[in-house]
C-alpha cells in the first residue's frame, strides 16, 4: 500500500464524515443555531456588562422577559398556523390601558380589571382572526392596519386619561404582589409565562386543536382536504395571540401602575424578530414554543444590553433590523436547501482495497469460470412479474416469489402458468423461507420481518431491534431486511443489510461501502430481535447448513461468504469461508448434493474496485454528477455458484447472452430443477440440473418428509 493510499484510508475510514449527514437528518438541528445564538448572546453581554447576572438585575430583566415571552408565545402560535400578528403591540397597550382604566379610574377590583384586560385582547384578536381567517385577507397587511388602528386608539385614550390615572388613589395588595413581589425567587410574570409556555407546548404537541394548527401551517390546502376547519383554526390562533398579549398588558399595568405613550412600542417587531430568530418558520408548520422563548431571551438581552451599554437612540431598531433580516434569510435558505445539503453530504464513502480475484471469464480455467447454461432456462411468469428477488417452493411444488409491488405471488404446479396473489404485504418482499409449520417467512424491504400463514394471514414478526448507544440515526429500525432462514429450533436468522440507507437506496450503500450490515435473530418464543453480528458490508443471503449447526451468510460488497456457528466450540463466532470472489454474492440456499447454491447479483469490475480505493473520487462523483452517470457496481451480469461446506467452489453457471438471466439474486433447487430469480428481472427461470436428485425438496431437507 502506497503512502498516499494509506493516508486516504486513514482520512476516510477514521474520520467519521457520515455523522455530519446523520446529524443533519435530525429535526433538532433546527434548534442548534438559535441555541448557539442564545449562548453567544448571553455570554457576550454577561461578560461586557458588569453585574449582568446579579440577582437584582436579573429580577428586573426577567419581569420584562415574562411579559415579552407571553407575547412571543402568542406570536409563535399564529406563525405556526401560517399567519403573522403585527398588532400584538397594540393589543398589549390597549389591554394595559383597559386594566389601568378599570382599576385606577373606575376604582373597581383588580379582578374586574383583569377580566376587562383579557376581554380587550380576545375581542381584538377575534377581529384579526375574522379578517384573516374568515375573510382570508393577507395577514401581514391586515394586522399592520389593525395595529395602526389600535395604536391610534391607544394614543387618544392615553392622552385623554393620563392625568386622571396620576390622581387616582386606588391601591391593591394583589396588584402590588403581581407587580413587585416574587414567589420562590421568581416574579409572578415569569411564573405565568412558564405556565403559559408549558400549557401551549402540550396543547400544540399533544392535542387535536394544536395538531390542527400545525397542519394548517404546514400545508393549508392539504389540511383543508383532510377535513380540518382551516378558517376556524386560523381564527383561533389570532384569538389566542390576543389573549397572550392581553395577559402581558395586564402584567405591565400591574408593574408600572399606569400606561404611557411608550407602552408596547416596537413590541411587534421585537416579537416578530424573537420568533424568527428562535427558529419559528415564516409560513408556518415548523417551530415550537421553546424556540420562541429562546428567541425572546436573545432579543431582550440584546436590546436591553445595548441600552445598558449606553448606545444611543435607534440602536435597537438597527440591531432588530439586522437580526430580523439575517434570521429570516437563514430560515428561508435553510428550509429550501436543507435537503440539498443533506443529499450532498450524506454519502460519505470509505476506503477499501479489494483482494485480487480469480477470473470468471469463460475459458479462463478457474473454478469461477461462467458458462452459458442459464440462458437455456425455461421462463415462468414472463412479463407478469416485476422483481422476483427470491423464489421458494412448498411441499406441493407451488412456487412463490415476492414482487416490487409488495405482493407475494404464487404459481401453481405443475406447469406454473396459473398464478395468484398469495398475500399483499407492502414494501418489497425479498428473502423467503418456510418454517416448520408451513408459514412463509419473508424479509420485507423497508418494513421488517413478516410471516404469512398457509391460510394467508399476514403477521408482522419484527420491525425493530434494540438501539445501540452510539447511534445517531435510529439503528433500531430495520431498514433493509434482506434474507432469512429458519433454524431447527424455530429461531429465524436474518440480515439487515445497512443502517444508513433505505431499501430502495441500496445502490448508494454500494458507493459508500461503509460496513453497517448486521446479522440478527428473531426468537418466536418471546418475540425478541437481537443483533448477533454487526459491521459487514451489506449482509445479504442467509442459509442454514445441512446439519443445522451453523449458517452461511453473504457479505455482498466485500465479495465474501462467512460461516456463523450456532453450536459447537465456535458458537457465536463467524469465520470467513470464501473471500475475494469475482462476483457480488446474494442469496444462498441448499443444494441436493449437500453443497450450497449462491447467487451473484453482479460482477466486480477493475474500474469499480479501483474507485473503492479512491473515496475522494467517489465523494466528488456523488456531489457533482447526476446519479445516472455514477460509477456503480456492475449488476448487468451475474450467475449461480455452487460451493461446498468448507467454501470450495464446485461449479458456476451464468447467462452470457444476458437475454434471460443477466443478474441473479436467488435460486432454489426443487426436484431436479433450479428456479432462478432476479430483483431486476421480469421472470423466473427453471433450469434442469443434470445429475441432481429428482426427489430432493427444500422443505423436506429442512423439516423432514411429509408427515
Amino acid at each position: 500500500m502506497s503512502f498516499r493510499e494509506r493516508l486516504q484510508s486513514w482520512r476516510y475510514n477514521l474520520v467519521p464524515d457520515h455523522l455530519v449527514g446523520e446529524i443533519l437528518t435530525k429535526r433538532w438541528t433546527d434548534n442548534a443555531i438559535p441555541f448557539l445564538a442564545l449562548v453567544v448572546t448571553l455570554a457576550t453581554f454577561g461578560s461586557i456588562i458588569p453585574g449582568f447576572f446579579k440577582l437584582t438585575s436579573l429580577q428586573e430583566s426577567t419581569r420584562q422577559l415574562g411579559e415579552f415571552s407571553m407575547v412571543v408565545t402568542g406570536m409563535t402560535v399564529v406563525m405556526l398556523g401560517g399567519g403573522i400578528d403585527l398588532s400584538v403591540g397594540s393589543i398589549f397597550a390597549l389591554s394595559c390601558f383597559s386594566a389601568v382604566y378599570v382599576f385606577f379610574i373606575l376604582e373597581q377590583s383588580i379582578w374586574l380589571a383583569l377580566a376587562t384586560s383579557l376581554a380587550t385582547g380576545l375581542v381584538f384578536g377575534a377581529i384579526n382572526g375574522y379578517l384573516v381567517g374568515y375573510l382570508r385577507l393577507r395577514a401581514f397587511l391586515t394586522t399592520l392596519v389593525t395595529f395602526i388602528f389600535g395604536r391610534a386608539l391607544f394614543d387618544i385614550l392615553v392622552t385623554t386619561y393620563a392625568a386622571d390615572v396620576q390622581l387616582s388613589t386606588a391601591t391593591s395588595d394583589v396588584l402590588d404582589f403581581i407587580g413587585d413581589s416574587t414567589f420562590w425567587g421568581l416574579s409572578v410574570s415569569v411564573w405565568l409565562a412558564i405556565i403559559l409556555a408549558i400549557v401551549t407546548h402540550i396543547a400544540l404537541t399533544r392535542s387535536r386543536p394544536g395538531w390542527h394548527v400545525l397542519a394548517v401551517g404546514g400545508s393549508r390546502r392539504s389540511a383543508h382536504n383532510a377535513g380540518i376547519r382551516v378558517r376556524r383554526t386560523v381564527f383561533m390562533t389570532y384569538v389566542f395571540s390576543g389573549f397572550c398579549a392581553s395577559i402581558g398588558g395586564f402584567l405591565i399595568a400591574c408593574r408600572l401602575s399606569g400606561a404611557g405613550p411608550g407602552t408596547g412600542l416596537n413590541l411587534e417587531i421585537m416579537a416578530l424578530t424573537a420568533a424568527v430568530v428562535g427558529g419559528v418558520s415564516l409560513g408556518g408548520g415548523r417551530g415550537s414554543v421553546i424556540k420562541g422563548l429562546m428567541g425572546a431571551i436573545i432579543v431582550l438581552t440584546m436590546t436591553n444590553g445595548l441600552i445598558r451599554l449606553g448606545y444611543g437612540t435607534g440602536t435597537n431598531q438597527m440591531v432588530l433590523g439586522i437580526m430580523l433580516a439575517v434570521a429570516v434569510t437563514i430560515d428561508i435558505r435553510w428550509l429550501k436547501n436543507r435537503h440539498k445539503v443533506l443529499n450532498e453530504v450524506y454519502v460519505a464513502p470509505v476506503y477499501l482495497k479489494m483482494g485480487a480475484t480469480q477470473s470468471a471469464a469463460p475459458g479462463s480455467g478457474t473454478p469461477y469460470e461462467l458458462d452459458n447454461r442459464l440462458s437455456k432456462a425455461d421462463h415462468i411468469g414472463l412479463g407478469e412479474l416485476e422483481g422476483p428477488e427470491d423464489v421458494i417452493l412448498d411441499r406441493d411444488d407451488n412456487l412463490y416469489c415476492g414482487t416490487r409491488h409488495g405482493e407475494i405471488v404464487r404459481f401453481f404446479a405443475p406447469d406454473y402458468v396459473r398464478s395468484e396473489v398469495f398475500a399483499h404485504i407492502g414494501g418489497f418482499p425479498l428473502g423467503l423461507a418456510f418454517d416448520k409449520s408451513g408459514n412463509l417467512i419473508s424479509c420485507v424491504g423497508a418494513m421488517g420481518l413478516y410471516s404469512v400463514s398457509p391460510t394467508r394471514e399476514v403477521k408482522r414478526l419484527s420491525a425493530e431491534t434494540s438501539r445501540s448507544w452510539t447511534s445517531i440515526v435510529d439503528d433500531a429500525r430495520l431498514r433493509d431486511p434482506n434474507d432469512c432462514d429458519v433454524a431447527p429450533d424455530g429461531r429465524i436468522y436474518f440480515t439487515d443489510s445497512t443502517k444508513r440507507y433505505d431499501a430502495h437506496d441500496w445502490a448508494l450503500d454500494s458507493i459508500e461501502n461503509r460496513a453497517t450490515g448486521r446479522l440478527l435473530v428473531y426468537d418466536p418464543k418471546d418475540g425478541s430481535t437481537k443483533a448477533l453480528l454487526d459491521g459487514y458490508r451489506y449482509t445479504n443471503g442467509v442459509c442454514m447448513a445441512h446439519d443445522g449447526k451453523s449458517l452461511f451468510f453473504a457479505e455482498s460488497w466485500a465479495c465474501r461468504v462467512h460461516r456463523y456457528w450456532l453450536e459447537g466450540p465456535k458458537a457465536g463466532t463467524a469465520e470467513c469461508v470464501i473471500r475475494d470472489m469475482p462476483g457480488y454474492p446474494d442469496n444462498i440456499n441448499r443444494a441436493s448434493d449437500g453443497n450450497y447454491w449462491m447467487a451473484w447479483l453482479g460482477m466486480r469490475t477493475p474500474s469499480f474496485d479501483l474507485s473503492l480505493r479512491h473515496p475522494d473520487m467517489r465523494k466528488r462523483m456523488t456531489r457533482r454528477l447526476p446519479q445516472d452517470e455514477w460509477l456503480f457496481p456492475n449488476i448487468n451480469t451475474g450467475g449461480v455458484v455452487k460451493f461446498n461446506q468448507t467454501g470450495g467452489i464446485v461449479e458456476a453457471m451464468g447467462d452470457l447472452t444476458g437475454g434471460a438471466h443477466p443478474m441473479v439474486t436467488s435460486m432454489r433447487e426443487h426436484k431436479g430443477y433450479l428456479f432462478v430469480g432476479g430483483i431486476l428481472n421480469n421472470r423466473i427461470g427453471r433450469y434442469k440440473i443434470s445429475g441432481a436428485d429428482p426427489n430432493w425438496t427444500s422443505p423436506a431437507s429442512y423439516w423432514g418428509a411429509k408427515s
Partner: protein
Amino acid sequence: MAALPLGRKRDMNAIGWPNFRSLNQEGIVFAIAVVLFVAAAIGLPGFIDPNNLLAIVRSVSVLGILALGMAVVIIGRGIDLSAVAIMAMSVAWYLQLLNSGTPDGLAFAYVLAGVLAIGLLNGFLVAYADVPAIFVTLATGSFVFGYVRSQLITQDAVPVPQGHWVELLGGLRFLDIPIEVFVFAGLAFLFFLFLRYTKWGRYIYFAGDNPVAARNIGIPVRPMLVLRYVLSAFVALIAGLLTAASLHSINTRVVNSTLLYDIVLVAVIGGIGLSGGRGGVRNVLVGAALIGILLNAMTIIDIPLLYQNLIKAAILLGAIIVDGVINPRDEQTAQQGDI
C-alpha cells in the same frame, strides 16, 4: 398586451373618465373623491379657495411621489416598507454631512451610493434569497433608521444649511405653483410612459400577475425585481429632498409616523391590487386625490391629528377588505408562506 384579460385591457385603455358602468374600485374611489370635493366645497369655508386647492396638491405631492415608487413595487407583487426610512434617513445623513463640512459633491455621492446599496440589498434578498418582500423591507427599514440615527446623525431633526441648493429648491415657484407639484407631475408622466410603453414596464405586469409563468417565458424576473427596489429607493430620496426643501429641515421621527401607511393607503385605495399585476399611475393619482381632499377637509374641520390617524386607519382597513374581496387571493398561484 395579449396576455392581459380583455376586461382589464379595456380599463387600461380608457384614458380620462373612468367607465362607471364597470364599477371597479378606481371608479368608485374617483366618484367618492368627486363627491367629497363637492361636499367640502359647499360645506367648508375656504376649501374652494385657490390657495387651499394649491395646498392640497402640494400636500399630496410628496405622498404621491412615494406612492409612485410603491405602486411599481406592488404591481410587481412586492411591497416596500423601507421607503419612508430611506426617504428620511438618506436626506438626514446628506444634510448632516453638509453641516459637518463635507463637500457637496462628495456628500451627495455618499448618499446616492447608500441609497443604491439599500435598494440593491432589498432587491437581492427578495429576488435571490427568496425572502418575502414584506420582511426584507421591514427589516431594512428598521436597520436604516437605527443605523443612521445612532451612528451617522446626532439629533432627530437636521436643518438644511443656509443658502444650499436644497433650500433654494424649496423656494422655487413657477406660475406661483411650488416645484414639488411639477416634480410629481413629471415623475407621474415618466412612470406612466415606463409602465405603458416600455418593454420592461409591461414585463412588470406579467411578473406581478404570475411570476413563475413570467420566468418560464424568459422574462428576467429576478434582475427586474432588484431594479424595482432600487427605483423605489431613488424615488424615496427625491421625495426626501423635496420634503427637506419645503420644510428647510428633515425630521427623522417621520419614520415612526403613519406616513408609510398613508403611502400604502394611496396605492391600495386607488385600486392597485396587493396581489400584483394590476393598476397603474392613474390609480395613484386617484388615490392621492382622495387622500389629499380627505386630509385637507379634516384639517379644516379641525379634527385632532390623533383622530385623523384613527380615521385613516379605518379607511385603510376598509380599503384592504375591499381589495381582498375584489382581488381575492389566487390559491393556485399563491405560495405557501406568502403572508
